[in-house]
């Protein structure tokens, strides 16, 4: 188990999670959301995290984003310790979190504007990413005019536009219907294959994890910690056909049985 986690990947270690523990104070006392968590993410790697509710997936993501501070331990990116949020770590939220008073273009430009990028450059960057998510005709629409899938495309374009070193995705497709979800998975894969980026992707869906990830992290609940890490050696480009292969389904079943064990454990 530990062997595969420590296996040396090609490329530099990008993110190092070192002995992270997170304790929350609640009315019923202390809750250990995350305990003794170690993880190395390499440059341009696509990490998917699966596990039962309450296993600390989102806590780990929030710590990587800088939205939360670990109680113990440290997280570094390119050797520098993470304190507080920054535009070098983009986040895509499950609830889209688009600014409803801004148009699609203005949403995508939001981070660029904060970076004081000139108007012309802002426009060309925004247009590039709006086009890449296929929403060229909706650039001047407001979020309320968009479907859930379109909103999440805008959120992805907005995260990509500021060119973060690390992209964090918190169950981004969890609220979408099965068809839209499949479509967005394939689109995200294409974008990642074209424009390599280090991704940290949380999901409940094991199939989604296997399709997208270079490595799948299985977490266990109470207290949340990493149970095992599994390499996904399926070749790229991965497409809809990849899902049909025996290899894909073998890995999926293996991971699913690991996750299922944790669901049972968490139910106790």
């Amino acid at each position: 188990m530990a062997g595969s986690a420590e296996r040396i990947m090609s490329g530099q270690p990008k993110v190092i999670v070192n002995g992270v523990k997170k304790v929350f104070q609640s009315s019923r006392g202390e809750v250990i959301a995350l305990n003794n968590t170690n993880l190395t993410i390499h440059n341009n790697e696509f990490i998917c995290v699966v596990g039962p509710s309450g296993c600390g997936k989102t806590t780990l993501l929030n710590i990587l984003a800088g939205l939360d501070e670990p109680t113990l331990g440290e997280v570094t990116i390119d050797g520098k310790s993470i304190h507080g949020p920054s535009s070098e770590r983009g986040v895509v939220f499950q609830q889209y979190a688009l600014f409803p008073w801004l148009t699609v273009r203005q949403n995508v430009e939001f981070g660029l504007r904060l970076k004081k990028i000139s108007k012309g450059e802002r426009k060309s960057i925004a247009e590039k990413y709006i086009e890449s998510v296929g929403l060229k005709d909706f650039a001047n629409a407001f979020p309320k005019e968009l479907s859930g899938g379109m909103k999440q495309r805008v959120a992805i374009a907005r995260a990509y536009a500021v060119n973060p070193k690390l992209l964090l995705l918190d169950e981004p497709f969890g609220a979408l219907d099965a068809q839209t979800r499949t479509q967005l998975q394939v689109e995200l894969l294409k974008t990642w294959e074209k424009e390599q980026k280090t991704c940290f992707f949380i999901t409940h869906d094991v199939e989604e994890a296997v399709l997208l990830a270079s490595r799948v992290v299985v977490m266990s609940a109470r207290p949340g910690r990493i149970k095992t890490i599994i390499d996904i050696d399926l070749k790229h480009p991965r497409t809809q056909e990849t899902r049909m292969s025996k290899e894909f389904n073998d890995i999926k079943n293996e991971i699913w049985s690991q996750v299922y064990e944790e669901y049972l454990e968490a139910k106790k």
Partner: protein
Amino acid sequence: MINKPTTKFGQIVEKMDGRVFLLISLILGLLTWQAVSMTSAGAVFAGPVDTFQAFVKELSNGKLLQHTYASLYRVLGGFVLAIVIAIPVAFMMGWYKICRVLVEPWIQFLRTIPPIAYIPLVIVAQGVGESAKITVIFVASFLVMVVSIYQGVRNVDITLIKASRVLGARDRDIFIRVIIPASFPFILVALRLGLSASLTTLIAAELTGAQVGLGQMIQEASMYFRMEIVILGIVVIGIIGFVLDKTLLFLERKLAGWQEVRSV
């Protein structure tokens, strides 16, 4: 449509324009008013014809405009002053904990007191002049608005704040680019609530003592049993409230049309 109209009458109704219905509704209302005034209640309840005659007379001798102007001046004076102060106070309360904990209990306490209760106090302190009325209207609409705007500031979706932080926003950016636009719909709702509070308080203040104003006009007319003027005053107040409210509603549609669900 849930029910497709099957009768001929139903089909005609379906095709008609909303404005036609407004007209029909208006005529029906006037007829009802006329009918009530022709019963024994008519002794108190002046009919539409008498009221219209009173309207023409009071308009031509200039009194009606004088009263309306005085009342509007007070309402808008108190209301605008309240807006100017309520917005920064509400944002301070929403943003700084120290403001919130010090100010909120007082606002919550004071807003439960009907403004009519402190009218005598204000009149003793400031006399029966304009400033007393503006003060009362200011206090009443300020309390309503500050609570409503403050709720808006507090209810800004936390994910939007997180989303802006991870896009590189600092506190100042969050305040200007997220908190203010996100609470904008609440400000417009607050304005409508504040306006209605202003009008209510205005009449109460004018009934208590004024040389001029629609409330005073009603008060004086009732002493001489000029019921057509009493009703005229009531109708004019209604029209003022209606027009101002529609203006704010129009602004809301123009300026906050991006909302998924309109807040009122």
